[in-house]
């Protein structure tokens, strides 16, 4: 265990016993963040209101209980009373909680109506959960991209990686492509999923929403402060559930339009070259990139998979068998397993290159060269 951890442990032990050291607690996060949207503040206020009401009730109820425990004990020589019924108090302690609940329900109802008012948005982003990354589609501008765990975090989170997570900035909360939005704009998020159920959650926005295959859920946010806000998938979605974070960058409107322009160009670049012949080295290089983004989580860097959970690609009947079968598996997935239909996520060049890479790596040496045009034919 590194020195950093010894320090953390010491910190943890100290904070456990020194309850009075108030300022030291702030950095650990004790409470819900207030967030940066009207909704998140509304929810925060509601949370605090209910919490305080609970505290008052607890103080009264537990107060009576401990008073009784201290006063009405046999060792003090008291004699037990034998009363066992009183309809009046039963009615009182049924009615008072009801009243308190009605008082709680009023602000909660108002808040809920506000949350569900998703109309009149200026920008719509479709968020699609995949095992295990997010895809963002900007509906009005018509471009989209994948957002995956940043490579530094991904390296450090491997079993027994030997890398101290404390050394990595924003460990597990950093992505390659953050989702960028303008501030002070009503953004509508439409969440869905391609394989299993995920949940898109940025605490600073105040809510999470399940992203479910076959469903489109709507939520909204008006972000009032520029900044970078981080979140995670909140619904168990398989092996790498912990490793598909969300990074949301709220920027000024001008910055946003610059970024969106760049993204549209970048998306066009990525799709370029689908109609030309590719050389082996080009395909292998591109294939390795695609593999290390989309395939490595299950099939591993060495192509050996994880015994009992994910199949190996080395010498497997798919990667060393007929090419058609291999293309079919990658494009259409395998039903009832974690093997997703990647034909929907990847463009022709990506599919062609990753198949070429798989058939010519880790000792697989079929020499096959798959051209993007072969993939286009099968679409």
């Amino acid at each position, binding site marked *: 265990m590194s020195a950093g951890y010894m320090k953390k*442990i010491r910190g*943890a032990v100290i904070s*456990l016993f020194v309850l009075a050291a108030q300022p030291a607690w702030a950095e*650990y*996060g*004790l*409470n819900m963040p207030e967030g940066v949207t009207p909704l998140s503040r*509304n*929810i925060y206020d*509601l*949370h605090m209101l*209910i*919490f305080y009401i609970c505290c008052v*009730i*607890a103080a009264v*109820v*537990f107060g009576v209980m401990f008073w009784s*425990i201290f006063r*009405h*004990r*046999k060792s003090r020589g*008291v004699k*037990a009373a034998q*009363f*066992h019924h009183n309809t009046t108090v039963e009615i009182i302690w*049924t009615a008072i909680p009801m009243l308190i*609940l009605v008082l*709680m*329900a009023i602000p*909660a109802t108002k808040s*809920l109506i506000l*949350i*569900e008012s998703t109309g009149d948005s200026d920008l719509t982003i479709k968020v699609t959960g995949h095992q295990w990354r997010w895809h963002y589609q900007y509906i009005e501008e018509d471009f989209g991209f994948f957002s995956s765990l940043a490579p530094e975090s991904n390296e*450090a989170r491997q*079993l027994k990686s030997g890398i101290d*997570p404390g050394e990595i900035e*924003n460990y*597990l*909360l950093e992505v390659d492509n953050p989702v960028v939005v303008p501030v002070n704009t009503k953004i509508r998020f439409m969440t869905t999923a391609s394989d299993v*159920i995920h*949940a898109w959650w940025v605490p600073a926005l105040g*809510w*999470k*929403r*399940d992203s*479910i*295959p*076959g*469903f489109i859920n*709507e939520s909204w946010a008006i972000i009032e402060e520029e900044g970078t806000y981080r*979140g995670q998938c*909140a*619904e*168990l979605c*398989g*092996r790498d*559930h*912990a490793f598909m974070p969300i990074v949301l960058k709220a920027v000024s409107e001008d910055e946003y339009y610059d970024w969106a322009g760049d993204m549209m160009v970048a998306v066009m670049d990525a799709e370029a070259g689908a109609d030309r012949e590719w050389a082996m080295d080009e395909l292998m290089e591109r294939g390795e990139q695609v593999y290390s983004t989309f395939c490595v989580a299950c099939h591993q860097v060495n192509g050996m998979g*994880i015994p009992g*959970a994910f199949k190996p690609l080395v010498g497997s009947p798919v990667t060393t068998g007929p090419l058609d079968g291999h293309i079919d598996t990658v494009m259409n997935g395998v039903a009832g397993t974690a093997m997703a239909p990647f034909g929907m996520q990847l463009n022709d060049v990506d599919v062609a290159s990753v198949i070429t890479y798989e058939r010519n790596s880790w000792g697989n040496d079929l020499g096959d060269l798959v051209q993007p045009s072969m993939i286009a034919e099968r679409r």
Partner: protein
Amino acid sequence: MSYAETHEHHHDDHDHKPTGLGRWLFSTNHKDIGTMYLVFALIMFFIGGAMAMVVRAELFQPGMQYVDPQFFNAMTTMHALVMIFGVIMPAGVGLANWMVPMMIGAPDMALPRMNNMSFWILPFAFTMLLATFFMEGGAPAGGWTMYPPLITQLGDGFPFLIFTVHFLGVSSIMGAINIIATIFNMRAPGMGFMQLPLFVWTWIITAFLLIASMPVLAGAVTMLLTDKYFGTSFFIAAGGGDPVMFQHIFWFFGHPEVYILILPAFGIVSQIIPTFSRKPLFGYESMVYATAAIAFLSFFVWAHHMFTVGMPLAGELFFMYATMSIAVPTGVKVFNWIATMWRGAMTFETPMLFALSFVFLFSIGGFSGLMLGITPADFQYHDTYFVVAHFHYVLVTGALFALMGGAYFWLPKWTGHMYDEKLGQLHFWLSVISVNVLFFPQHFLGLAGMPRRIPDYAVQFTEWNMISSVGGFVFGISQLLFVWVIIKCIREGKKADEQVWEGARGLEWTLPSPPPFHTFTIPPKVDEATAHS
């Protein structure tokens, strides 16, 4: 009227108790079957606990140190399945087997052979479930809630999971039918429904919940099975199905299920508190009605487990109001327990300590439950460690603590020996302190943004996870002491008398400790003094 007076002419010493393995394999005796249920629950408690230790070890610090994420998910999933279906439920049924006939003056359960079968299904069902660890694809890792489509990605273990659930359902339903048949038909003369001890009442209601909800679960998992193997698309969106429908069906079972876990605990606590307060239970009738109200309402609140799936506003409002309303009867129960203590003459033996900590800590779980029921706030809390903290407060310091209190309470009756009071209290204090170190910080983690069911986390969550893990290890080790107390009690505890506890009232305390193999072969007469406490 004491047991000896009515049974003078009887020869309980010669009651032909079978011997050897056959005594247990073919048992139709409610006491032996109760013992088997309790021992089984205790064994499973350590198996499920070992899985929790793996979880807490991996979460001790950020980074992946010990297990693959897939195995971690299997640990959380199997921990839940084992603890719910293998520990809390069988322990509750075990107590019902032992105590219900003795409390209502019946010679045995109404359907003794079925009783044998409903127990013996369990070891086979769990062997099947645990065997999935050694199968291609590993043990279930999609969460105990088995949400599709994720759960259908499970490998060869999948059908074994489904059939395990079927078996557990069959076992539970048979147990429930037996309990209802016993209580409805075999009460001693003079014991009306409103004279039943509250533990018996909570079991009537629990049994009806079981019969109503377990078939729903069986239906849901059968649909999963046909979706994976027989080409149906109940829950597959691409085939026109609806993945959210599974969640609705599952939680229509699942919410009554949480009351199946907690109502017997309410019953136990309602026996212990009057005994050690030396005062009758306050508001007996309102306790019965509150329990029934909780059970009734439990069928109308299921969707609060899934507020974030995207329901229409009207649905969200309905389930929020219904959920909040459960706080009323639950509050009534807590107030009645406290009113029972009020102006009593309390002593604090181990069962009472567990019961008091139950009232205190279960209430904390109740408060966080109320917070979770507020839909807008749930959009933040949902699927975070705040939820994990909440349900461990109600299930560990709630259900489990009550069961342990019950075990200490009735151990002298079962074995005829007192347990070691000092060791029992040591077990209590170690448990109650460590369990709070374990679960209280998880409230903070959840509010600060840590999702549940993750094997690795961002570094700002390190401190609270370390504290929580330390609490977990201490809690885990402390439970070995419980086993030692039981063994010591059986082997060398000092002799217990009939009454055992000064304030104990009810038929079970008129029997010798330990009770003979067959009791109440002649029904006792019930009067005010021997009826409920």
